[in-house]
């Protein structure tokens, strides 16, 4: 097997004295789509942050194409240059810049000065709402519009690996369907995916593989076809232990 695009080896990470991940190992191959599922507070977001360089692991390594990215200190931009793009959860936009400036910041790097206009066009095609509001300051967009903006930024770019955290949160069902359609399109174009999603059904449909995260540990990995059953039994287990 060729070297995976992203590999986490025994990664431990946390916040100050608090540890959220306890030795997590995970691989995402070229063009592969992996769904990361787990309860609230299991550490999914933390894993996504560690995988994109936002958070520096306290132990273990994160490899992109089999090599470490940068040395020491948070260097998320190096991950981006290596083709690993992260759409963080929540309202992750630069609130004081306009919609267009938010997009331009990413697109200028990805497509250069000449490709900028085309990329903006595509983003507005994908989310016409954004096109209507291109000169509005991003901080004053509605919650869903802000999600669209941060998704528009990464979806148009079709990076080599897209890490998306809670991507459908706050979006209308129609828009969610559309987002998943776009995801499967860019997948077809060769983008690998690592997806954190509460709407597990949607995510499993899209992905080949699933990983279950519990209390900072990966407790199960396997093809999505088996994941449904596993998840059900696990949910059942936790429910019964809680009853006791």
């Amino acid at each position, binding site marked *: 097997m060729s070297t995976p695009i992203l590999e986490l080896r025994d990664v431990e990470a946390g*916040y100050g004295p608090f540890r959220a991940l306890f030795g997590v190992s995970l691989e995402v191959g070229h063009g592969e789509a992996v769904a990361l599922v787990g309860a609230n507070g299991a550490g999914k977001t933390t894993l996504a942050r560690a995988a994109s360089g*936002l958070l520096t692991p306290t132990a273990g390594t994160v490899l992109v194409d089999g090599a470490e990215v940068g040395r020491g200190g948070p260097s998320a*931009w190096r991950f*981006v240059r290596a083709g690993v793009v992260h759409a963080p959860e929540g309202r992750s936009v*630069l609130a004081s810049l306009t919609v267009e400036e938010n997009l331009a910041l990413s697109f200028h*790097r990805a497509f250069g000065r000449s490709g900028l206009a085309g990329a903006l066009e595509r983003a507005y095609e994908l989310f016409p709402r954004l096109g209507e509001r291109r000169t509005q300051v991003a901080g004053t967009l509605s919650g869903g519009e802000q999600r669209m903006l941060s998704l528009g930024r990464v979806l148009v770019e079709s990076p080599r690996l897209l890490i998306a955290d809670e991507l459908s949160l706050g979006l209308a069902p129609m828009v969610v369907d559309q987002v998943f359609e776009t995801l499967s399109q860019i997948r077809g174009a060769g983008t690998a995916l690592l997806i954190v999603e509460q709407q597990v059904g949607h995510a499993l449909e899209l992905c080949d593989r699933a990983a279950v995260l519990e209390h900072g540990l990966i407790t199960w990995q396997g093809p999505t076809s088996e994941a449904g059953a596993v998840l059900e039994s696990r949910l059942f287990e936790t429910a019964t232990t809680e009853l006791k």
Partner: protein
Amino acid sequence: MLTYKTSGVFNLAFGAQAYISAAMYFKAHSLWGWPKWAALVVSAFVLAPLLGLVLERLIFRHLRTASAVSKLVIAIGLSVALPELFNQAARFTAVAGRQISGIVPDGAGVFYDPFGVYRFNRDELAMMAVALAASLLLAALFRFTMIGLAMRAVVESPRMTELSGISADRTSAFAWALSSTFAGLAGVLIAPRFNSLIPTEFFTLVVIAVAAAAVGKLVSLPRALLGGLGLGWFIAVFNTFLPRWSGDHTWLRPLQENLTPSLPFVVLFGILVLWRAIGRQTEASDPLAGVDPPPPALAAHQRHPKLTLFTRLFGVCFVTVVGLVVWFRADVLWMHLVTTAVIMSVIYLSVTVITGMAGQISLCQGTFGAIGGFMVFQMADRFDMSVLAAALMGAVAAAAVGAVLSLPVLRLGGVWLAIATLAFAFFFDAVMVKFSWVGGGSTALLTGTRVPRPLLGPIDFASDRAFLVLAVIVLVVVSVVVIQLRDGTIGRTLAALRGSEVAAASIGISAARARIVAFAVSAAIAGLGGALLSMHHQNVNYSVNFGPINALFWLVVVVALGARTVEGAIQGGAAFALFEPLILQGELLAWILRGEDHLPGFFPIAGSWRLVLFGLMAMQFARHPEGLVEYGKRRASARISRWLEAREERQAAVA
């Protein structure tokens, strides 16, 4: 002239950077005889960006996610430390009373009069031309280039910017180099306007710069530049025409004399207080702030009981021994220094109240002190009033001023509060002090603002010893008041507010009342301390004791040593008065080594290192808001506690 908000830091160190470049230019051109262009290149285009890069790399890079207030404190620390560091490193001494030459030949001597109203000299024209060009250049940079966009993005959220694939480190390094270059350029250009080259002059630059940025924060960046230019014009026109008009209309004269020097501060204060939007504006927050761990909780005060007992005993012994030594052995000089230390502790307690308890940065504590001092002077001078009663009146007057000031200002909060109080301090400095009913007017220039020592019934505090006792009594009383305040309702309210204003408001705690009380109490303490200090020196000595820049240093000292506790304030007072003679001049070491001759050759160390040291210590504010010494003590006591507990456990196991 103008500032450029490129780094998201309210860079009060701007003045320091300007000073360094101006001093470098002066040194290279006037002392070493370099040609002007070479001196300019070295000072503004080599030294200044380098300085910016160094500051960014060593300090501000690590502060990107720190709160705006801690950045402010650090910038204040820097503006205290940097000029002195430069003076020491470059063996430069402040120049006064000498025409500083500008960048154009014969700048001050050749005049042009394009509009027939005012004769500009060449220096001024050069300054305006460069300022205009620089503004246009920067506006273009921010509007039309990617790096400009990236700089704005980094200010808001370095992490989001990184996720767009742009290195936040490089961008902010660039921004710092750029802004530092402009600061340096501004410094070199404006130096000819002052007849001296001392750091304080350049600090007033900052106030104007901040006013421009205040306008800019509300509107767009290009408009900030316009705002700066407009402000500069407005001030310049005022300065030029008022004197002339008042030649014809005598009724304008008092207005002119008092308003002109303070105009920038009045404008700034007015903008801050009147422009409602500033108060409402919340800082745009980083959407990815969740990546950071929560700030370290202040270590709970859970000491081992034995340890508490021990530290208390030690404290009592230490104070007794020092007290006895001072009482019986100290000569006049040391008596004087110790009294100063005690009085400064009283003044610093006012900082403890406003900064430590209320979490607000006030930069006009010196002004409150001065109000106390002047009150004593006026009452004693005019009405022959009892000095102690006058001191109390001074405290009340300061409290009143503080309360009135706090009404418009407190609404601002955070950084703006600090800047508004700074503007007020400068306003007091430039205008109020000159009035005869405040600073004594022209008679004070001749005779000084004399203040007698108090007389209470049969006790005459004219002797230094008796006065020291009085000062100690006041310190104890004020300490008790502060502790009562901290443990009472007001103190708890303030602590809750420090945590989260919104949360506190939602459970029905009113911010306004507690803060006004804190402000007034703090002002009263400062006023009382100021009155004592004036009595001690038997002179108000306004500019030496209470000038606006002094208040900056006070804040730095207290913050460095511990702003949360009474202990911290007392240590601050001791450090302020005794650090220089004891440590820097090597007295303590000499005493330990038994004899001055054993001292290593580098003693005595120049006194200005004190500024450098405390300025650098204040830099730790972001990480240890409780103060560095306090932090060290807590760590040590935690370690000893743990050791004691472990021993007890072992004993229990044996038994």
